[in-house]
């Protein structure tokens, strides 16, 4: 292993990257575009649910309930005319998500001290939004019900009823329950994976396709030096992407970093190294760019996006798929990222993830080096 030859390969690869401005721009724009999309535009939080209210009672009591819906930030009342048919049509056309029907005898029941009913009609096609919206609407009705009961007790000169139990919910790690706080840390894993998969997997296949590999072979460079030199160049690019993602995530979107900054850098470096080795391994084996690209899409981008727990919780998947996620390195990296960013935990909790990523990187590096030696020798 000679540092001079290593340096030469690193310089050559660096020049390749700098001379293809289109690909370089793409590499640096990926994190910016993804973070802007996820930070500004994409959220799973539910508020301003478009709601129609059909009030058959038209009493002070029903108007008081409607006022509650109007005052809540979770609902936007956009329609109060037209009845059932209009609600049905609105939901069919996806203009409405929720219909609230207050029946004719609503105030009558309340006045007699009986239980009145309110019908909530929900569009369940987006199950996630529907479950959250149903929860908000039910607790709003419950609060109204408790207030009516207390008012009735006061009117009779009695003490208000106290609920026997009071559920005190305390949320750890992400107090405001903002989806961007858990998506943006995981996004770093996806971004690093895209960079290493899209760029590295083509780097050696391209040398074969364009015939420059033969020229490289005629130089005294050794397979390990070639591998490490190429790795280093893309490693620098990947860490630059990581820095861009961090600056945007922490600075622009105010995602909290509760854990150690250096631990974060350590994990990113470890993961990036393994991912780059994987890209190079594919590239060495595949020989054609089309095949290399397809293989790296299926083996690195899709698992990082879908099976890492970055957005879709692993514990909800079928058992077999859960077992498959155990061999997805991005899964361990996402766990580490969310742990460092949100939970502020350190090595004492994350050592298993570090160990897996370390073994993975070592294994893939050895494989890539061996394949490279075979192909070249």
């Amino acid at each position, binding site marked *: 292993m000679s540092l001079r030859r290593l340096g030469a390969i690193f310089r050559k690869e660096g020049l390749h990257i700098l001379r293809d401005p289109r690909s370089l721009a793409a590499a640096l724009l990926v994190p910016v575009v993804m973070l802007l999309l996820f930070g500004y535009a994409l959220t799973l939080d539910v508020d301003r649910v478009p709601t129609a209210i059909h009030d058959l009672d038209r009493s002070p009591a029903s108007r008081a309930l409607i006022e509650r819906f109007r005052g809540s930030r979770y609902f936007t009342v956009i329609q109060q005319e037209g009845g059932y048919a209009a609600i049905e049509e609105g939901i069919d056309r996806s203009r409405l998500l929720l219909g609230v029907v207050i029946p004719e005898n609503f105030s009558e029941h309340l006045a007699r001290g009986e239980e009145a009913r309110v019908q909530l009609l929900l569009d369940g096609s987006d199950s996630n939004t529907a479950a959250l919206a149903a929860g908000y609407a039910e607790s709003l*009705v419950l609060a109204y*019900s408790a207030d009516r009961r207390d008012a009735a007790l006061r009117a009779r000169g009695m003490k208000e009823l106290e609920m026997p139990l009071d559920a005190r919910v305390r949320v750890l790690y992400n107090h405001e329950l903002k989806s961007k706080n858990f998506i943006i840390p995981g996004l770093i894993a996806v971004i690093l994976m895209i960079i290493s998969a899209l760029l590295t997997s083509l780097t050696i296949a391209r040398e074969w396709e364009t015939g420059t590999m033969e020229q490289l072979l005629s130089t005294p460079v050794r397979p390990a030096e070639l591998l490490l030199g190429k790795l280093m160049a893309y490693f620098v690019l990947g860490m630059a992407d990581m820095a861009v993602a961090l600056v945007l995530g922490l600075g622009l979107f105010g995602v909290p970093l509760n854990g150690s900054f250096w631990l974060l850098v350590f994990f990113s470096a470890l993961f990036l190294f393994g991912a780059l080795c994987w890209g190079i391994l594919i590239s060495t084996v595949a020989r054609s760019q089309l095949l290399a690209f397809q293989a790296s899409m299926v083996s690195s981008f899709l698992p990082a996006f879908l099976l890492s727990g970055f957005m879709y919780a692993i514990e909800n998947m079928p058992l077999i798929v859960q077992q498959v996620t155990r061999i997805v390195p991005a899964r361990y990296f996402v766990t580490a990222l969310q742990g460092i960013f949100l939970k502020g935990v350190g090595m004492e909790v994350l050592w298993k993830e570090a160990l897996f990523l370390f073994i993975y990187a070592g294994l893939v590096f050895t494989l890539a080096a061996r394949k490279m030696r075979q192909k070249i020798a």
Partner: protein
Amino acid sequence: MWERIRQIVVKELRQALRDPRMRAILIGPPLLQMIIFGYAVNLDVEQVRLAWSDLDRSARSRELRERFSGSPYFTIVAEPEGEAEAVRLLDRGHAQAVIRLMPGFGAGVARGEQQDVQVLLDGANSNSAAIIAGYAAGVIGAYNRELLHQQQMRKLVGRTRDGPVRLALPGVRAETRIWFNPELKSRNYFVPGTIVNIIMLVTLMLTALSVVREKEIGTMEQIMVTPIRPLELMLGKTIPFALVGLFDMALVTTVALVVFRVPLRGSVLVLLLASALFLLTSLGAGLFLSTVSSTQQQAMLGSFFFFLPALMLSGFTFPIRNMPEPVQWLTSINPLRYFMEIVRGLFLKGVGIEVLWPQLLMLGAFGVLILWSSARRFRKRLD
């Protein structure tokens, strides 16, 4: 003219189906994606891992515990003693929620004083946390009502000459009815969306690559010396991939219906019509990419950067309604969004053309516009 188009179509189909690796690419990745997406993309929360920290150990606390262990949503996985241990369980992800009952809970309930039930949640995944909070509130609320009822029976019973009477108190009950997807399975929502993005990815990439490959390996020159005209070449290049697209559509729709048991409530004919209109867009975009790229790498990178934002801004996972308003306007020029709305409307709601005509119209308009402008560009490049 038709004869020359037919020749190109036959050549393309032969080229695509002759190579076993190409055949694999037409069928393998769409199936694989359908299966990974179908199983992995899921926002439901089932079987919450709950840690139960009971410092009271009374009959009342055991009663509440039974409520939780009897609920289909919760599984009690640990019984930590102190707060430190409970937090450690959350830190390591062994538990998603902890419920703590303080000493004196049972005695307090018996005296009719309000007692706290502490719920600690792992908020790292905010979406799961909000749903778990809802489940816990439901279980505690039901127990609450029962306790209240018992207390009311004791406290509020007055005596008259005719015997005991209960004081009548007003209340409101919400009756929730969920349409289209009553079990609230997110799979029913995501699987139809997956069909859309698979069709997009397959047809976009194949079209872009098929033209660029001819340029890269130099066979484009050979085609140019034949009497074929640019328009005919373009039609000949796109018709085979339209057929492939429709074939893949049928394939993944079958998987969705058979493997994932997603309901298809609307008309198959409207689905076919919408797919055909959408293919105009994706084939047009593929042609456009082939005119701007000179190597296969550029074409692949290009299709990736076209595909990803189009998917994210189509409402596939993230509801468009929640986006900031300028971004919502942006989504209205995204053809994928209209196709997504049509497919979901057909699968889940079973609505027909009478509801979906605006989306179909937009899809058709975008398709014609995109295909027409790329065709013009394509022709200029060839002349």
